[in-house]
């Protein structure tokens, strides 16, 4: 019999940090870098094809789990928008002294607005702290990029946002 009543599809932080798509700690401090949260062997290489700088490697065996090369990554966000699984996000740890910049894919309507305060949602689907939207980039393929300022300790926990709508 299963003890847990609920089980969500969310990697533990330990497993996340072990992924080939997760940059080493020193690389995280070095400017914007992509995190490819793709833990399973699935035949897909869109991230590799999307990167103009060759910073993501999947290889000929397209089932391989993607690897990030932080040296090559400039944080352009192409992978964030193109990944069919919406599994890639960008991290800029030292965007300001207090806040990190998290760039996530977003496919909901309405899009948030720059300057708006929204609620961060964790990987598990729980509401986290309010976060400010630093920028929104609509992309032609329909997957927008949203940049949010997050407290540094939350940088690897927040994966989505919720816009609290005004009740009319």
């Amino acid at each position, binding site marked *: 019999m299963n003890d847990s009543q609920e089980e969500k599809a969310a990697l533990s932080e330990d497993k996340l940090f072990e992924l080939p798509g997760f940059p080493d700690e020193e690389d995280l401090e070095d400017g914007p870098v992509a995190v490819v949260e793709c833990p399973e062997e*699935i035949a897909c290489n*869109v991230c590799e094809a999307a990167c103009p700088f060759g910073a993501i490697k999947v290889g000929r065996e397209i089932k391989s789990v993607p690897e990030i090369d932080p040296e090559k990554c400039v944080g352009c966000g192409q992978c964030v928008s193109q990944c*069919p699984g919406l599994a890639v996000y960008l991290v800029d740890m030292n965007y300001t002294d207090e806040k990190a910049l998290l760039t996530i894919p977003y496919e909901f309507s309405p899009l948030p607005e720059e300057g708006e305060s929204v609620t961060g949602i964790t990987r598990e689907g729980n509401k986290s702290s309010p976060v400010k939207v630093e920028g929104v980039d609509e992309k032609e393929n329909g997957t927008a990029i949203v940049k949010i300022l997050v407290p540094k300790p939350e940088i690897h926990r927040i994966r989505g946002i919720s816009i609290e709508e005004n009740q009319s």
Partner: protein
Amino acid sequence: MLNKEVAVVGGGPAGLTASIELAKRNVDVTLIDENLQAGGQLLKQTHKFFGSEEHYAGVRGFNIARELIEDAKDLAVDFLLEGSIYSVYEDKVLAVKKEKSTRLISPERVIFATGASEKVINFPGWTLPGVMGAGAVQTFVNQHRVLPGRKFTIIGSGNVGTIVAYQLLQAGAEVAAIVEAADEIGSYYVHANKAVRSGDIPVYTSHTIKEATGGESVDSVKIAQVDDSWQPVPGTEKTIDTDVVCLAVGLRPRTKLTSLTGCRSIYSSTLGGEVPLHDESMETSTDGVYVAGDVAGVEEASIAIEEGRLAGVSAASSLGYISNSAEADQKEEIRGRLELLRGGKYGEERAEEKERIRSIFNERLTRRESSTVRR
């Protein structure tokens, strides 16, 4: 009776690529589909597809359909839409009903790319309005742009269930729960995570639906935990407030028409159910009858795209349109891509099953003249 070189039955991804490969090689091909538009299940899919460039990876389902249809039209594939095949006679003759008239089509080769149909589970209250298949939910929401309700409970956490959950959130609906009988979510991690981090979606693994209740339509469901024998555990019932119960419990190959050709099939649980036996050229045990896509085993759109190509090349070669050596090269290329697509933890099991089907075919069967199943 209309004589044709090749009839392709089913205008989803497999049927479209098969038609394209045939038409590229100057084969006269008619694509028959019972719907108003070709595109199959791609038309309802708003997410970007996986795979690599050859499989339109990164392109949204409905756009893949659009591109394939355009390519087929550019190559002068003959589209017979709203055409429903109601019988298959001797020597592959297809009886087609369109509007109020019928016609017989006699093709030299036929490729069945009829896809898959949804499985259902029964429970008290399953006949209430509000209980519907995941395909129905997608059709109403993504094609017709109408939500069939406000609070959805999804039964089944495979890729279909988790993708539909996400699509429902995108459409502004609430997902009251995802209910999964197994002890872990069945879908790819990325599909599941994408859904759960986008809204408040309780996920109940090791749970099953016990009943749906309501007066005139569903207003709640009871779920319960299951034990190791899949039996509901007394005392673990929970009531969920919901008005649509979306059944995402699996797909099976749509083999009604292939069975009429007399071709042999086997049961494969991994591939969804009854699968027509076929060789590495996608040809069945009945001469000149090919299969491609989900009807040859439920897999994914990228596989359907490649199998359609394989069947198209095979049929073209059998009609003398390409030389044996060219055929061998082209097929090897496609098979190489299929092998890559069937890599990884989800693909491996299917790859094994497809291999088993091929070996059974080669060991046990000799191809025979086409025949019909007489009742």
